[in-house]
């Protein structure tokens, strides 16, 4: 992953010195000086080895654009992304599973079909388009929410603790809703199919024969058994979800890893670009590990060593 990003970005024309110091009055000698300072005059292989050695020590190098160490920049941006992506992820699962439960409880009715069509429509929209439409609609045409950023740039420092908290939440709602809409729609479709898949299973008939209320038959017995495909979806959908986060951060001027990555690509700020890519792949790997753990929690048959193979 690291290697691929490193090679890709160096294959692209231009370098950070050209980008930052492209004023024609800057002499070639000055550029050469700065290239030497940052090691950009070395052969690519040498640059790469040096870089890998840094990453192994937990150092991602130094940002040309920010004049700060990449680790410092990431440490500032990561919690913001975690806040946005985390709330959107929780929201998507809660909303997606709730929609599926309603659909299955009213299977074959108009409610089922309306939710089904709506989630299919949302599911087929591109994130950035959805983001821009949401921003236009709910921040400009109907100014219910702020138009971007994490806090009110003017008033925030003067607000009391409760008002400051509300200011943060107010800024979070629209981007989090927009980011979760797509994933929620996907989860709803998957969860509905998974629930209908177990609907004819014998143990649900047993639960009904025991006198378990229909609500618990669905929400306890069926949902626990229909969790596995959705956990799989979580592992598979995480890269796409993180991709969506990049777009949404950019559209809503959310100063997290996504905005950082987009700006860094534009500025050819290699160390930041690579660090963002590495971080992204670590999140994806972490996500599939988490999915594996959840799998074992959800299905006791997978807890023992030579268990049956997964569906």
């Amino acid at each position, binding site marked *: 992953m690291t290697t691929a990003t490193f090679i890709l970005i160096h294959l692209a024309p231009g370098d950070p010195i050209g980008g930052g110091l492209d004023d024609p009055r800057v002499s070639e000698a000055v550029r050469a000086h700065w290239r030497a300072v940052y090691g950009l005059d070395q052969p690519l292989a040498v640059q790469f080895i040096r870089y890998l050695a840094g990453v192994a020590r937990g150092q991602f190098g130094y940002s040309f654009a920010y004049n700060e160490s990449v680790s410092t920049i990431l440490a500032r941006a990561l919690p913001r992304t975690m806040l946005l992506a985390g709330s959107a992820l929780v929201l998507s699962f809660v909303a997606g599973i709730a929609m599926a439960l309603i659909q299955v409880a009213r299977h074959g009715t108009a409610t089922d079909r309306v939710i089904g069509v709506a989630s299919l429509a949302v599911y087929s929209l591109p994130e950035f388009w959805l983001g821009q439409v949401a921003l236009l609609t709910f921040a400009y045409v109907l100014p219910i929410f702020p138009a971007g950023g994490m806090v009110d740039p003017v008033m925030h420092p003067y607000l009391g603790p409760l008002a400051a908290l509300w200011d943060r939440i107010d800024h979070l709602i629209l981007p989090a809703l927009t980011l979760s809409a797509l994933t929620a729609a996907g989860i709803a479709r998957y969860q509905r199919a998974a629930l209908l898949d177990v609907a004819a299973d014998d143990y649900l*008939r047993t639960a009904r024969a025991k006198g378990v209320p229909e609500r618990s038959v669905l929400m306890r017995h069926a949902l626990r*058994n229909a969790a596995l495909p959705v956990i799989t979806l979580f592992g598979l959908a995480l890269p796409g979800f993180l991709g969506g986060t990049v777009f949404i951060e950019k559209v809503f001027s959310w100063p997290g890893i996504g905005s950082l990555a987009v700006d860094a690509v534009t500025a050819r700020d290699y160390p930041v670009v690579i660090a963002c890519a590495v971080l992204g792949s670590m999140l994806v790997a972490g996500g599939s590990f988490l999915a594996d753990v959840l799998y074992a929690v959800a299905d006791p048959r997978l807890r023992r060593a030579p268990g049956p193979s997964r569906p």
Partner: protein
Amino acid sequence: MTAPQPVPAPNPLLSIRDLRTVFPTGAGVARAVDGLTLGVEPGETLGIVGESGSGKSVTALSILRLIRPPGRIEAGSSITFGGTDLATCDAESLRAIRGRRIGMVFQEPMTALNPVFTVGSQIAEVVRVHERTTRQAAWGRAVAMLEAVRIPASAERAHQYPHELSGGTRQRVMLAMALVMHPALLIADEPTTALDVTVQAQILALLAELQQSLGMAVLLITHDLAIIAAVASRVVVMYGGQAVEEAPVTELFAAAHHPYTEGLLRAVPRPRLPNSPAARLAEIPGSVPPATAWPAGCRFHDRCAFAWDRCRHEMPPLYAISATHASRCHLAAEPARRTAPAPTAGTPS
């Protein structure tokens, strides 16, 4: 075999009247149960026997209204249990009877238990949905019930998941689940069919013993007449979604009237010798037709060695053979016809 049974009391525990359960299918409407009437007395064991496809399981599921749509119980059917018509009562009254007054055990112990919950919690759940009680008290009842169905180390077993248990143990768990509320009626649909012979005998012995100690009635469904002989006091023979013969067990084995029952009796090793090595002595020719296309007239006529014109056009009523014995066969009206072709030489028309 047990002694002859008394005449059915006028006040049965469960009374099914003209039950019709149908499933719309691509091939037409499957009339799986089509006009079934039967009663279960308090404390008795009523056996229902018949080949696969004769409507036994659909009957069992209909009693607790467990038929999944688009299948449905047709209007006009009634299933009276303790003054409530289960076919039409509201969902909450039905729920209060399921698992509490009527317990149910299914054929497939592999799939009937929920794979993601411990067996203890699945038994305790029955207590918790019917009684206001603490988690611990319900768990205690579950463990005690596991002990009552003779599962050793029941306190530890309660923490296990279904996939960690053998088929026989799972069926004991199903029994514990069905009996934990001490129901007045247990419906057991082929409870031992999926088990091997030794385990089968153990489970049946356990069932008989629990029935004694709890004083409940049992509706035992099976395709195996040897099991009927071993545990039932009365028996209803089903074919084509209908009762075709009904009699006390002794009378059925001594003097079966319906040619279908005679065929079933010939098709199994002698009931008095359940361990007899002799395999099937004779098969009933042909097979059960699909429920979408029952033959006109007597539903058994195209497999019957005695069938004549009347059988092909007129559905026989349940003729009374004696006060406790009934048969849905025109031979009851025209007994002379029984001398016709030898039953063993019979071929499907």
